[in-house]
């Protein structure tokens, strides 16, 4: 006996697409709680919640994201022949909203969102095709204070959501391209190195650099890529012997950003990581990723993207980030076990006491105690209502009293 034969099979179990998930009562509540706490945190920092559609025209998405992300869209045609897609991320949608409806400000504009995003990825990969993301966009502010705010807010939201031991890696999108420029690499070699870095292939970076006549200081830095991380002190190490204005400017921005993060009191959770960027076409300034030792994936990421809004005809500086709710949920469950399912009091009643039971249930719910009232008499619930009064147990002891006394006792300790 394996128990397998007891599981529903055949037609009864068909009907869910691969790569998608059902979330049952406990996990679904846990996942929603995390998203709610993220949004509460965003709103507490002054970010207004907006909702954008699950579907956008392919043309709108293509204006915002690169080829790799475009090829991973679920696309379809509507009855007018318009080519549409399920969104793979929501920053582009928010940018579209700002460019078309909020372009008169007031700036800076603080917006937040949460919703499903879909990726049409290979099956069997063990990766989700639908995931829940929550994010913030801070639009119309070009100073580093905006970048620092986003980093501090991402960290605050993750911690409020229950993720432990977070670590933020902060980099700069212009550092490596600037470094390659000042190293005197020709365009081909430059593209080769950037492509290898985007593939995370450091062996190819090394062999591409060996084939060039890059100056020693720059080559040394590029080869040290995975170890270019630490506190503010690594900026001085990196600056030594470096020529060219661009990489120096990136380092200066990171130094100022570090001071701002110190003012936000989060530098104990921050590493500067000069090699931490991949999406050079999209990001234009500081970037960051958030990790926890409990997950093999980044839990959140973001950065400055000053060119996106101009692709929608509204040149505005912008910075923002996204948090991956499902990965956060996995990470919390991995450390602490499944989140406790919400407790629900079962209210039972004897014949003639149905109305009393419903009255008790209404009173409990007004005090935000979840309860479900039996639909038929004679149940064996946590609370028993009869025409002579209410019985309930507290701390192992059985107590009796009026409806009012029961409400007082059962809501003790709740706000």
């Amino acid at each position, binding site marked *: 006996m394996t128990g397998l034969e007891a599981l529903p099979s055949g037609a009864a179990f068909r009907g869910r697409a691969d790569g998608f998930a059902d979330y049952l009562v406990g996990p679904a509540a846990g996942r929603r709680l995390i998203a709610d706490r993220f949004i509460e945190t965003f709103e507490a920092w002054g970010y207004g919640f907006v909702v954008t559609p699950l579907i956008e025209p392919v043309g709108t998405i293509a204006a915002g994201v690169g080829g790799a992300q475009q090829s991973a869209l679920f696309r379809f045609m509507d009855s007018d022949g318009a080519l549409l897609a399920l969104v793979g991320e929501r920053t582009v949608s928010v940018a579209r909203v700002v460019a078309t409806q909020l372009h008169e400000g007031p700036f800076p504009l603080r917006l937040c969102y949460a919703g499903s995003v879909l990726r049409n990825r290979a099956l069997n990969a063990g990766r989700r095709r639908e995931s829940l993301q929550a994010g913030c966009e801070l639009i119309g502010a070009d100073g580093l204070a905006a970048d620092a705010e986003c980093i501090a807010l991402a960290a605050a939201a993750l911690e409020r959501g229950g993720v432990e031991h977070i670590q933020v890696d902060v980099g700069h999108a212009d550092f490596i391209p600037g470094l390659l420029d000042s190293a005197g690499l020709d365009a081909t070699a430059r593209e080769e190195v950037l492509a290898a870095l985007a593939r*995370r292939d*450091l*062996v*190819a970076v090394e062999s591409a650099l060996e084939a060039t006549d890059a100056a020693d200081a720059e080559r040394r830095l590029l080869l040290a890529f*995975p*170890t270019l*991380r630490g506190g503010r002190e690594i900026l001085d190490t990196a600056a030594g012997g470096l020529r060219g204005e661009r990489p120096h400017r990136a380092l200066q921005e990171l130094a100022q950003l570090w001071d701002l993060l110190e003012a936000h009191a989060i530098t104990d959770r921050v590493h500067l*990581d000069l090699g931490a960027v991949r999406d050079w076409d999209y990001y234009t300034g500081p970037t960051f990723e958030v990790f926890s*030792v409990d997950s*093999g994936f980044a839990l959140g990421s973001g950065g400055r993207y000053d060119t996106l809004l101009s692709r929608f005809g509204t040149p505005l500086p912008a910075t923002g980030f996204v948090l991956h709710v499902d990965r956060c949920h996995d990470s919390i469950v991995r450390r602490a076990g499944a989140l406790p399912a919400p407790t629900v009091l079962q209210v039972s009643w004897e014949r003639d006491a149905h109305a009393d039971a419903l009255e008790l249930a209404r009173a409990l719910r007004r005090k935000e105690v979840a309860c479900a009232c039996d639909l038929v008499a004679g149940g064996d619930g946590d609370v028993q209502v009869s025409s002579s009064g209410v019985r309930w147990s507290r701390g192992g002891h059985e107590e009796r009293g009026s409806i009012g006394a029961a409400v007082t006792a059962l809501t003790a300790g709740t706000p």
Partner: protein
Amino acid sequence: MKGLRIALPGGALFESACSLLGAAGAARLDPARFDRELSIRDGDNVFVKVRPTDVPVYVEMGGCECGIVGKDILWETSRECYELADLKFGGCRLVLAAPRDSALARGVWPLSLRVATKYPVSARRFFAARSLNVVVVRLHGSVELAPLTGLADCVLDITATGRTLAANNLVEVAEAGTSTARLIANHAALKTRNESVGALAVALRRAVTERLAAGAA
């Protein structure tokens, strides 16, 4: 949690991987012990022996922080891992080979070509930039048989010595890539376990350099 979980590839690279880890002072592993145990703890680290194609899966998904795997496996995977070091053992080449008496073997490329391979991603990449009408036939083993049976005109396969190709009357027409063993790491582990992962990479690189120097001397 100081130690790392490290995925090792079963098969041709396995013993060399164990011996390089020994030379680097990272672990003393007796390859034969893995016949009885799938997972072995050595010091702070845990080593698991898995199928080579599974190494990037373990590493990307966070089941292991690091892994050792041939570049040829990485060509074919869509898994995202950091490739930290070329370990310079397990060398082999990906070559296009055709029957000795074929036109292709004489350097005459037909307009359409049927290619049998265990490396469909690499095959598509190799032919992508070339104006040939190519049909890639994905096989799981013994691709040399495909030209013999008329299943394909040629093969795209890994060769270390060229002996298997020669024994099957195949000659190399073009090289599509060279492969050696690589150290790979999980994205988040590279950040959250940076010191351990970095130390492993440095130790292995040093051992590789020393081996090459000893080999040259």
